[in-house]
């Protein structure tokens, strides 16, 4: 079975704020849920499937379903793969809709890491690997630094090339009135920013933001009856990237598997892609993912991005036109939701005018959850304009 054309994204909503000191986490889930449903022209009572991940407070999807009053649910899914969860959820929702299990799926993400910091669940002492990693002091940034160092060693990638990714994101962010870091930066400014865990600098890292977002995925007959332009789900792939019993390779991500699966299902190739939302927890995440999705040869990502390829609207691969996690928003340390939302804006022709890709018909969205330095989960979506 293929999900191609079996489901449409009808609603998308990104919380406009980046610091929310006066609300609960559940309350922000509600804000974005209602926002996405309003965008679709639907209401909470229309929802028959609910998807959320580890950021949802309470008991799996049930506490939030109860809080939101989702009394008509026939399907729930709380797949937790970190920041890629929401990209995977769209694929799962499309498959469930294609199977007739549901017709209106709501996906929410929300959290308040700036206003109400909580310990990361990844540090659980019950994880089977915990004793062999946590005592050595790994931090999120240092894990990606290990991946960057190895990529540099094998392929000659440079810090200046990584910086070009941040520069492109910052060029885009200046057109987003909600962006946390709206000021364009130069390669030199990235390289001059403090080293957090070498070779990664502060400006190689995404922002930490409160907020969230939501999506509504619907069956074709519902999409056809809604007033707003919708986005067609064309393909989806997922793949964990594991440490393989001591054979970890830090130079690639699970997108080497999730990407081809998604492209095959969609019936398109990387050459057909007009816009890319690429998970950008760190600059190195983008570099490896671009290679892994086949936009350039493995190891040549540095030269590819240094050439201005990522800059919208006219680069070879316009990416993260909202400013991405590097400059706009990375709510709850999970960037997958905002990646889907910006792809929806592009395919509806509703991105900020200076970065709207002309005649944008095919978009790829790639999420990565977990850590490139240990184990991670990739999810890839291919989305098309309503008439694609």
């Amino acid at each position, binding site marked *: 079975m293929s999900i191609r054309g079996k489901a449409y994204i009808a609603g998308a909503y990104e919380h406009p704020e980046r610091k929310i000191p006066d609300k609960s986490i559940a309350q922000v889930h509600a804000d974005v849920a209602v926002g996405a449903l309003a965008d679709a022209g639907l209401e909470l009572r229309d929802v028959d499937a609910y998807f959320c991940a580890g950021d949802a407070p309470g008991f799996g999807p049930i506490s939030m379903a109860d809080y939101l009053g989702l009394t008509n649910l026939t399907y729930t899914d709380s797949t937790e793969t970190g920041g890629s969860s929401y990209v995977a959820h769209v694929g799962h929702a499309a498959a469930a809709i294609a199977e007739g299990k549901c017709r209106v799926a709501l996906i929410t993400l929300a959290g308040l890491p700036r206003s109400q910091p909580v310990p990361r669940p990844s540090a659980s002492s019950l994880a*089977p690997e915990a004793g062999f990693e946590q005592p050595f*002091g790994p931090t999120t940034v240092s894990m990606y630094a290990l991946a960057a*160092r*190895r990529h540099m060693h094998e392929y000659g990638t440079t810090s200046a090339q990584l910086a070009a990714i941040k520069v492109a994101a910052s060029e885009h962010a200046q057109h987003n009135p909600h962006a946390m870091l709206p000021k364009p930066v130069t390669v030199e400014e990235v390289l001059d920013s*403090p080293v957090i865990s070498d070779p990664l600098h502060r400006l190689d890292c995404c922002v930490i933001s409160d907020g969230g977002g939501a999506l509504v995925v619907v069956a074709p007959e519902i999409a056809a009856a809604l007033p707003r332009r919708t986005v067609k789900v064309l393909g989806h792939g997922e793949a964990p990237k594991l440490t393989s019993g001591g054979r970890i390779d830090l130079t690639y991500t699970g997108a080497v598997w999730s990407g081809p699966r998604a492209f095959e299902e969609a019936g398109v190739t990387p050459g057909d892609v007009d816009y890319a939302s690429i998970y950008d927890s760190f600059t190195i995440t983008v570099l490896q993912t671009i290679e892994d999705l086949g936009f350039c040869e493995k190891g040549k990502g540095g030269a590819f991005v240094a050439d201005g390829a990522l800059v919208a609207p006219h680069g070879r691969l316009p990416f993260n036109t909202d400013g991405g996690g590097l400059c706009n928003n990375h709510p709850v340390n999970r960037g997958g939701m905002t990646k889907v939302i910006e792809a929806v804006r592009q395919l509806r022709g509703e991105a900020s005018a200076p970065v709207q890709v002309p005649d944008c018909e095919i978009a790829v969205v790639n999420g990565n959850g977990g850590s490139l330095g240990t184990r991670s989960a990739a999810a890839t979506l291919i989305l098309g304009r309503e008439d694609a």
Partner: protein
Amino acid sequence: MTTPAASPPQPLPAPVPPVNPETREYWTATTRGRLLVKQCADCDSLIWYPRAICPQCGSLHTDWREVSGRGRIYSYTVNHRGEGPYQGAAPFVLAYVELDEGPRMMTNIVEADGAYLTVGLPVEVVFHDTGEGAALPRFRPLRS
């Protein structure tokens, strides 16, 4: 509030790892200066991190095997922002070492001036006692 300027880094902490029946023998060996990995009794694969199942072939028959404690740096980073027990310990070196026997393990590089660290540098294990029935295998540049 003032922040003390340029205070010297603290000695590297040695946090106590969680120990369970599956990993107790490994940790007991570390207190005797021995580094163990698992080996599959069916497919002979060496397995890191140690566990009861072989992730290569699915066998539940795995045995402990002592390794040399020598290897090379596969990747490393000088972390300037320690967290949790490592707050105040920065800068310190987090790394993957590829053991001569093959497996790549997360660790710290110690007794090394950051200036000459490089991927491929030969290293040897040293054990840092946590004081609670387990020692952390860290690595230092191999003295020739």
